[in-house]
């Protein structure tokens, strides 16, 4: 196709070939220049900056691996990374489990209008801003006046101090995050389920598989490529959580809900330690890359392609 078109252009006018050589670059210029300036240069700069001490006011000074050594020993940084990992494990497990269960339930025989309703309902929180969601959730989880404790009182649970205790705050941040984000995994699973041929289920039921056994032996293996994509995306997103803990708890009480991105923000823009902030960022990026690579490696053993 391309050779024929190039011949056509070359014969139509002299210099056509010449023009075609720079033409792709004209199409790419805005994206490549913008990405170079605002993404690639900053990536390199933040790695370089991680080896300097700099407060923006005085001149930067080279400190080797000092920033890394300091942030690794900083108890707040340590706690925030542990919090982030704990958050990722619990939030992602809840998000994927809920999304998968609801996707299977929606995908089985249902009146069309109900399916549309459920799909829209589960998708809905994705269009809201995490900041406004966190604002109204703060009121719902209020210890005295919140609707959550009011509802719990009906099943005999005494008022839970959600936002004033470390465990309560961590639970709220996770619940609010999962509430808003499970719809994304849900959509992925809906797509994955739709691609499983119905004959597979028919064959399974002829073999006597019913109910949850059918899902265990047919749905889960056939859905494993989707599950891989969904878990990679969910983990990458969860590792970067910021808006919810910032608005809900400001990282407190104590450091209970401080996350990795929150300490990047605080060390750079509150304490003006740009080198240390960059070092934390580099560590976070390395963790994300390592986890993603590990997932793809593991997936070779657990993902089945049809």
């Amino acid at each position, binding site marked *: 196709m391309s050779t024929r078109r190039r011949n056509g252009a070359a014969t139509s006018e002299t210099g056509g070939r010449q023009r075609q050589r720079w033409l792709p670059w004209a*199409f790419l210029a805005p994206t490549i220049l913008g990405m170079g300036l605002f993404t690639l240069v900053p990536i390199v*700069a933040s790695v370089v900056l991680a080896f300097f001490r700099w407060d923006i006011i005085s001149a930067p000074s080279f400190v080797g691996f000092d920033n890394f050594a300091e942030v690794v020993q900083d108890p707040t940084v340590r706690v925030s990374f542990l919090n982030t990992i704990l958050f990722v494990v619990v939030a992602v497990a809840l998000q994927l489990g809920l999304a998968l269960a609801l996707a299977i339930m929606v995908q089985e025989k249902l009146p069309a209008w109900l399916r549309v309703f459920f799909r829209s309902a589960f998708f809905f929180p994705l269009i809201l801003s995490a900041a406004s969601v966190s604002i109204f959730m703060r009121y719902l989880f209020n210890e005295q006046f919140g609707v959550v404790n009011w509802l719990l009182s009906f099943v005999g649970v005494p008022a839970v101090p959600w936002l004033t205790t470390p465990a309560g705050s961590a639970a709220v941040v996770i619940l609010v995050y999962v509430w808003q984000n499970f719809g994304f995994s849900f959509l992925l699973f809906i797509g994955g389920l739709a691609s499983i041929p119905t004959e597979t289920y028919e064959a399974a039921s002829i073999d006597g598989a019913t109910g949850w056994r059918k899902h265990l032996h047919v749905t889960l293996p056939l859905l494993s490529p989707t599950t891989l994509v969904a878990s990679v995306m969910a983990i990458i997103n969860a590792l970067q959580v910021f808006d919810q803990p910032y608005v809900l708890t400001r990282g407190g009480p104590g450091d209970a809900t401080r996350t990795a991105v929150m300490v*990047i923000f605080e060390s750079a823009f509150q304490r003006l330690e740009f080198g240390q902030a960059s070092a934390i960022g580099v560590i976070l990026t390395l963790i994300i890359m390592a986890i993603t690579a590990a997932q793809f490696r593991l997936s070779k053993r657990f993902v089945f392609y049809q």
Partner: protein
Amino acid sequence: MAGRIVLLLIASVFILGPVLWTLSTSLRPPAESFQLPPSFLPLNPDFSSYDQVFKQLNIMLLVLNSALVTGLIAVGQMFTAALAGYAFANLKFRGRGALFSIVLATMMVPAQVTIVPVFMLIRGIGLSDTLLALILPAIPTAFGTFLMRQYFLGLPSDLGEAAAIDGASPWRTFRSVYAPLAMPGMAIVGILAFNYHWNEFFRPLILTISEQNFTLPLGLVSLQGNLGTGSISVVLAGVILSMIPALVVFMFGQRALRDGLTAGTGK
């Protein structure tokens, strides 16, 4: 089936309930903000909280800022992604594969990691605390470029050949043949950009300083901070107002949004 529907209904109550509570509380007199049991159907809606939002918060300015930032990013992304996507899909040039891999790789690096150098760059070019500081860095889009490349690959290639045989230049072929056909793809890029940047909190928190440059999410969080837990109806009225544009886009672009969010995930 009945049991399954009941479970699904319970799940949707948990999802929609908090939003309905927000709506109904914003329509109650501020004194009844914390009333329990909560009324989910405000029979006598009271709009005083909405008046208060306009008095206490320069919400028109926030909406204008958000609309300007989001709109320019969306339009900018649509055009730059269409151009780049077309080049990657339909034009042959040296280093195409490598360059495309680099573009894809930038999606892996979290924005928070590069925020310090971006902040310094913005200061360096004299844009700090302006709306342009939010707009310019957000226009080049790796995901949009990827999406548009896929879209152009899906269009029949003989259209371009026919145009070339008729003597149309490659630019002319793009502008008159391919760009109009790619409108649905560009719409997905635009709607996704709207959804993401209308709700964005992290970058505006860092890149804007004065309240006159705040966007909606930032303004609402600062309003909540100013009021403490006092009159929550006012805060919630602001939250509801901020949802309206997102809801409109959701209603008109639901399918495009869904396709865009799940694009390239190998479903």
